[in-house]
């Protein structure tokens, strides 16, 4: 999967779960900048990412996924050929 496709898929997930406009989802989006990104939505985000990309995120990755940029990097790494 191309990086652009990964980011497009991720943006749809973040926009839906956090209830923010699609165009406002970019690398600057983080737990600090978005009040709706609480611990509960963190779980919804992880679940949606795992389902939509058909991957399993390591527990440590789930914990450090605190910005859109870090989510993108984590998903890219998970989808990279071994």
């Amino acid at each position, binding site marked *: 999967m191309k990086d652009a496709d990964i980011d497009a898929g991720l943006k749809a*997930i973040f926009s839906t779960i956090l209830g923010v406009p699609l165009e406002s989802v970019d690398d600057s989006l983080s737990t600090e900048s978005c009040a709706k990104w609480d611990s509960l939505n963190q779980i919804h985000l992880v*679940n*949606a990412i795992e389902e939509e990309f058909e991957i399993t995120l390591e*527990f440590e990755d789930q914990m450090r996924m605190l910005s859109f940029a870090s989510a993108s990097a984590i998903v890219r790494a998970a989808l990279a050929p071994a």
Partner: protein
Amino acid sequence: MARVGPIDQREVERLVADPARQTEARGVLRQWLDASPKTMTYQQWLHRLPPATAQQPIAIVSSFTTEIIAPFLEVEAYLSGWRPSMRYVQYTQWQNSLLDPSLLGPSRAVAVLFHHAELLPAGARDARGAIARLRSLVEAFRRRASTPLFLGLVEAPPVVHAIGFGEDSGKGMGSLVAELRMGTAELAARTPDTHLLDVHASALASGDWYDARSFFATRSVFTHKALPRVARSIARSMACLFRPRRKVLVLDLDNTLWGGIVGEDGVDRIALGTEWPGSAFVEFQLRLRELRRSGILLAINSKNNEADARAVFEQRPEIVLGWNDFSAHRINWNDKPSNLIAIAEELGLGLDSFVFADDSAMECALVRSTLPQVEVVELGADPSSFMNRVLQTQAFDTLHVSEEDRSRAESYSAEVARRELQAQVTDLESFLADSDLRLTIRPAEPKTSERIHQLIGKTNQFNLTLERLPKEGIHALIAGGSALYSAALSDRFGDYGLIGALHLEATGDELRIANMVLSCRALGRGVEDAMLAFAREVAAAGGRRRLRVVCSRGPRNQQVFDYLGKVGFSMTELDGGRVDCRIEVGDGALPWPRYVHVDRPQEETTTQ
């Protein structure tokens, strides 16, 4: 997600947004979510649900983290026909909140989800302590609150037969959890308004339902794979409190009750018996008989020659349901919507209490588009799935089958006999005189409170004030000795059971009818006259000069106003659809009806 099978997303969105087609909308959205039961699908539809006109406050009390279920529960509740506003209790507080229900705020229902490890510590030798603890929590709650409780035991962490610890299959934690499960079921059975939630079975059916690391890291029990089914289980059970059970299942005959077409294949060739597919049709009929025994009326709506259809019932010994198990028959060449309207008129029930099941997609589509208030079940071609399809609508879900429910279908059979007599005798007077009607009016008691609640809650046609008293309100009236009465009716054809309720309040020189409701089954036989005559007698005995009731106009109770006007009430329109109705009780007002024998309390001078 633009399309699931034949369903187009825009079509689903259009239905969901259309207030007149909500029954159909729930059906197609159900199919959509079943095809893709994922976090994103639920979250996307969550934002597309129509605005809730009424929300039911519920509380989720749990020994583990459950807030994550919220979006799933909200969508599943919509699919079950109700909308929630949810309150969650921190898992550290779950026992405290049962001991002190005020922590839960005002709720219409409380789900208690608990995992066995919370009550059964490792090394426990029996489950008695765990069951006793659970009982004390539930009983403490019940002493302080009458809110319905739903108990859901979750077997987490999952129990494996631990050969390594020397446990064989009959011992160890597995058998203790089984004991706890039995104890929970017994507790639910003997505690009022307490029910079981099958959350564990629902979770298991989701496959990979438990993640040990999440449990120990975040104290969450269910994986996201299990959340849709767990939410569905809670939403479906609670829906029984918030939406009425439908009353009638109308069935096709060919390829529905039996395999094949009787008019073409002949009575001897249709599939019914021990061999597939006849075996599946026999099983479907057995399950329909169970449904009938739980209070659901069955009716036939089939395009056939009636003689052909009757021949199956008379000549095929394998048939389970008898002709008289159906409360109405429309076997003709009319269109099915017209037949449904005729059946509704014959049974005296609204079409919004009907479910229509047919194997033909075309007939189903026709009924859906012409009678949107009818719930339609497209049975398809596989008879082994028919009953599941009927039950999946949730239209017949109920938490409790009362004695009234059990006898309903029989009393409708008696109604068929009544109609036959009515057709024979030419005037209503002699029919009533011949019927031997007996009305028994009694002060309400705890044992009749459930039926009174049901009557007040469900009666739309002969309901004077449309005020829906909650169960707690009825209990309080009974406990306080208020003038709340039940009325039971029988005639020579059978017993109708409790068919009416009357609540009186004396104020000054007036006796107020706080409410009066009568089941439509009892109307037009002089019973309403008898109830008002009784109220008049109570008023006179207490020295009151008039009877007064402030009625409310609703969509279906116009006959109340026609009737009160006919028997002499003066009426003044008030604001908000209310009507002030009065009648002086002297001089022959509201006489006893001639053909109803009334058994009533004699000393009625005190009303509160």
